[in-house]
């Protein structure tokens, strides 16, 4: 894809699932990728694979919801500059509202929403230096349609969608685009523990008749980071097999 070679891109939540697929895709396109996860150990398999395949993949462990850790991490990479940021790190703690603990609400908002504020703030500074940048936020179909048991998760993702549009407007004059990718049901650890009958029911509501693969999301993220997407900003691209149109 045009423009990805040697582009410096930070991907958060890169140890598994969609984040890992994004790192693999970007590395295969020749990008220099900073792979983030909370714990360094969880990035080892990715780094090992990178060595075998001659990827330019650099582990950058930090907690995306902790301001000091975020600042420290960006300090480490600031001299080389940054052109791309993929905010993918996210967690879920589902419960019906009446049973949802306050800490489960707070944690989801901090990790899924506040992290976007923290990482974008630091990332945008580096992008402004180069007068170029591409930000992609990974959201969720739950943030668009709502989902019972996920008031916290869907609120955080809906928040990121609104954030994406506001920041896109702010940064347009600086040649920095900000977009979101909204996956539906993707085969990851986040969806594998759903009960079989729930999975079956979901499958029936997906026009394409299958769960998506992490690679299906990674391809769209790579596109949004590439030169071919230079006229797209503030957009939410659904990757959901037609589940929600």
């Amino acid at each position, binding site marked *: 894809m045009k423009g990805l070679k040697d582009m410096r891109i930070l991907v958060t939540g890169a140890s598994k699932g969609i984040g890992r697929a994004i790192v693999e895709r970007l590395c295969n396109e020749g990008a220099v990728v900073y792979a983030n996860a909370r714990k360094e150990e969880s990035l080892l398999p990715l780094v090992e694979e990178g060595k075998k395949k001659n990827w330019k993949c650099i582990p950058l462990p930090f907690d995306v919801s902790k301001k000091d850790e975020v600042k420290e991490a960006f*300090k480490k990479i600031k001299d080389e500059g940054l052109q791309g940021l993929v905010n993918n790190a996210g967690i879920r703690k589902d419960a019906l509202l009446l049973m949802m603990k306050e800490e489960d609400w707070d944690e989801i908002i901090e990790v899924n929403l506040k992290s976007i504020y923290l990482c974008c703030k630091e990332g945008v*500074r580096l992008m*402004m*230096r180069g007068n170029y940048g591409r930000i992609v936020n990974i959201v969720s179909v739950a943030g668009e349609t709502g989902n019972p048991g996920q008031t916290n998760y869907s609120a955080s993702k809906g928040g990121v969608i609104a954030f994406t549009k506001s920041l896109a407007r*702010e940064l347009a004059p*600086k040649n920095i685009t900000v977009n979101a990718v909204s996956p539906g049901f993707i085969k990851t650890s986040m969806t594998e523990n759903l009960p079989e009958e729930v999975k079956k029911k979901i499958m029936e509501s997906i026009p394409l008749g299958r769960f998506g693969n992490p690679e299906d999301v990674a391809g769209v993220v790579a596109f949004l980071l590439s030169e071919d997407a230079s006229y797209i900003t503030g957009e939410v691209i659904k990757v959901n097999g037609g589940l929600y149109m």
Partner: protein
Amino acid sequence: MDVEKELIEIIAKRLKIDPSIIKPESRFVEDLGADSLAVMDIVIKIEEKFGLDEIPDEELEKMKRVKDAVEYIKKHIG
């Protein structure tokens, strides 16, 4: 290095205004017409030009006038 002169040059170039109208007392937003993106550009240029560490948000809030920035730079310059 004449910090004030260098800073005025940075500001004039970014805001595309004549350097002679920029005074130490000038306020970035109200008098010179800088929007927040222009202010950020100027801040980044200041950090690069004078080799400063990232200027913290609390300090940025206090920098209303050109002279505030000059004072900050003089205090933190290596």
